């Protein structure tokens, strides 16, 4: 790589995007149809929940990643872009893998919700690779990751006999580890040059807070939307609500406690307040009283702050991994914790009398935990390898975390 000048994407980006979109349109033309609306009220009942999910992904996750002071445009816009690509691909794969009985598969509000939620894995992972890849690479990553996640889902439902709800709650673990692994391949060489641009400004921090708040507010919908029985839905909402509230308070307390002058870090507020919602994802319907959810939120908030405070140093120096948005602390660690607590709860639920059965269940739960994590890591390493090929015209490291590489930026944006 001779020049630091960002390579033009003039030919490759439109080419890739247009070909892809035409393929999508053709597939939709040949293989999909609208479902005959059975009951109007059914649609209206689910539609508000779909809107909540959409706000979370389009607005929440986009602004959640807008914390780099020179990279806010790309964070918000690329998020929308990869969501748009991912949803179409996820719905196609979903149709072929899970509902392909007749010649065509039907599109309804549930398939859109599932498609949107499956695409969330990409939006999470792109937090780890944020600022280090260009749009073409993002398209490739979106396609590969959605495919990998749908495959994992299929595996989990076929072989581990997981419910659809449970398999979709693996989003956080899968997305976080996929992203971390992909970022590992991308950040092998030194990243010191980019330190300056990695700074966060006050306004970009406030934008991130906006994103976090929307994720935080709508998380109960996210955890409850796929459940069918109203009773379970209710419990999922309550559990998530209390877990989130507790993790917000805990995150701030531990943030002050781990700072030498007792100051709170806004970054911790962004990341660790969400930990409760992530952690409770898998076990939300088996928790039967609020205080258990609150304890879970407490431990998730703690682990996220500590993970965010001390792990990046280790990541950066020992395994040379750079996780831009801290998705590992936000989504990875709390999801792992949630899984472990799930195993404990299952064990407690079955009691210790019937040891063999309990052991069996624990083993299965461990499989639930291991599979998405392994698939995420494996898929991530592979994707990272593919993304590091030269053909994608990836940005030079000096241009990491900089909007200027992709956007037309007018000289005086300074309105102050």
């Amino acid at each position: 790589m001779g020049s630091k000048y960002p390579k033009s994407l003039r030919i490759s980006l439109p080419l890739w995007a247009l070909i892809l979109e035409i393929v999508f349109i053709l597939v939709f033309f040949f293989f999909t149809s609208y479902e005959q609306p059975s009951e109007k009220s059914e649609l209206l009942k689910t539609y508000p929940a779909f809107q909540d999910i959409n706000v979370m992904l389009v607005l929440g996750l986009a602004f959640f990643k807008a914390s780099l002071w020179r990279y806010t445009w790309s964070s918000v816009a690329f998020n929308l872009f990869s969501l748009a690509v991912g949803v179409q691909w996820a719905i196609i794969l979903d149709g072929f893998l899970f509902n392909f009985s007749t010649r065509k598969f039907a599109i309804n509000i549930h398939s859109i919700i599932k498609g949107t939620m499956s695409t969330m894995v990409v939006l999470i992972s792109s937090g780890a690779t944020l600022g280090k890849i260009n749009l073409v690479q993002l398209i490739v990553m979106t396609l590969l990751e959605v495919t990998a996640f749908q495959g994992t889902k299929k595996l989990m439902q076929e072989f581990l006999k997981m419910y659809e709800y449970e398999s979709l709650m693996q989003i956080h673990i899968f997305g976080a580890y996929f992203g971390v692994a992909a970022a590992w391949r991308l950040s092998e060489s030194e990243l010191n040059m980019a330190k300056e641009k990695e700074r966060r400004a006050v306004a970009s921090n406030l934008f991130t807070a906006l994103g976090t708040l929307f994720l935080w507010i709508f998380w109960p919908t996210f955890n409850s939307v796929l459940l069918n029985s109203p009773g379970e839905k209710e419990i999922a909402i309550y559990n998530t609500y209390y877990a989130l509230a507790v993790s917000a308070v805990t995150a701030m307390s531990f943030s002050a406690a781990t700072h030498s002058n007792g100051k709170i870090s806004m970054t911790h507020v962004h990341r660790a307040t969400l930990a409760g919602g992530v952690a409770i994802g898998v076990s939300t319907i088996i928790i039967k009283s609020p205080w258990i959810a609150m304890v879970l939120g407490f431990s998730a908030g703690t682990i996220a702050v500590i993970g965010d405070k001390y792990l990046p140093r280790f990541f950066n120096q020992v395994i040379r991994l750079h996780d831009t948005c801290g998705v590992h602390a936000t989504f990875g660690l709390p999801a792992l914790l949630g899984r472990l607590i799930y195993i404990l709860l299952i064990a407690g639920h079955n009691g210790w009398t019937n040891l063999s059965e309990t052991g069996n269940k624990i083993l299965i739960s461990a499989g639930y935990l291991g599979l998405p994590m392994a698939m995420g890591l494996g898929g991530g390493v592979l994707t990272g390898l593919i993304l590091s090929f030269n053909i994608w015209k990836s940005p030079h490291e000096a241009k990491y975390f900089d909007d200027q590489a992709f956007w037309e930026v007018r000289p005086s944006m300074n309105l102050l």
Partner: protein
Amino acid sequence: MPLSFETNMRLKFPFMAISLQLSMIILFGFFVGYENDGNYVQQINATNQSEKSLELYPLFQDVHVMIFTGFGFLMTFLKKYGFSSVGINLMIAALGLQWGTFMQGILHHHKKFGIDIKSMINADFSTATVLISFGAVLGKTSPVQMLIMVILEISVFAANEYLVVEILEATDIGASMVIHAFGAYFGLAVAGVLYRPGLRRRRHDNEQSVYYSDLFAMIGTLFLWMFWPSFNSAIADAGDHQYRAIVNTYFSLAACVLFAFAFSSLVEHRGKLDMVHIQNATLAGGVAVGTCADMEIQPFGAMLIGSIAGIVSVLGFKFLTPVFATKLRIHDTCGVHNLHGLPGVIGGIASIVAVALGATNKTTMANQAAALGTSLGTAIVGGLLTGLILKIPIWGEPPDQNCYDDSVYWEVPEVEGYSHYFHEHDDHSQLQPEA
């Protein structure tokens, strides 16, 4: 450095917050459960009940957005205080909703109780009182003081709400009196006790807004404005009452916006608009119509209430706030008196008039007047007591010169001054290819 200005919170704040949080978990463990345990797919009744409860869920989400995004961003107008506005707002609400659930449940049930979506809405409501009061003392207090205020204010609020709803049997569907007026006068009383002569001499350097901080505040305003009909109708009886609450609030807000713009232009120099008025006074209509939102006041009645509220709110910002700060020694940072206090009182009076005109038969004029009186009374007494407790100089409040500054309690990005408040793309030299 005197003890009171010891602002290092490394021990104080985490210790206090975590012990409060642990006590919440213990209280919930003993007193709060779920009404169902999810295992009753066969029981038709319970399923119907769940479905009914879930119908409220979209309304709850709207209220949730208002509390966390709306109130949080509304207070980001100060140039150096955005982190605290949004962050401490989140902390207050997250702790407050737990304490609010507990207090309201225990007052109404006196024993172990179950929660439903409605109690979550009520819990969010109870945090609104603290957030309003937070606006009055914004920039002059420490997070530790806010933790104390959450606990004290919500306790007083729950008692007052119990008094108004269960004993006086007054109606206050959109909570103009029990939340808005209560929160505002509570906050004013606290601000009065915590008054700092040092801040009065001249306008504090940090107590100003910049272009972008005002724009951030508009995010909050717009979210509050959009979802206010949900706020006023969330706990109304399903059917006619809920429908009326939505419609009335909608029109009241619309009318209020016009009057706020008109009067802002009228009172300002050369007819220019003042962003403070636009951020706050446009919402006054929603506050004022709250109490009679579900009564048969007709859309024109709602618009009338909204118009009056808009006018009073702008005039309050222009003429009353300076008087409060100089004569009464009450410094109200966000002007909550004009956004919540006065419109809340207008709401109470409007409900008395509406009852007199026969808009409802659920309550009487005397009951409504008594509800207004007790709300104001408990707020002021509670606020004075809370203020006295917060005045004890061990809670780490900021010294005068560091008021309205995030960097006392937050890790703030190291940029010089606030010229990098927003990112700049002025550095084009890097784009040139290397020679």
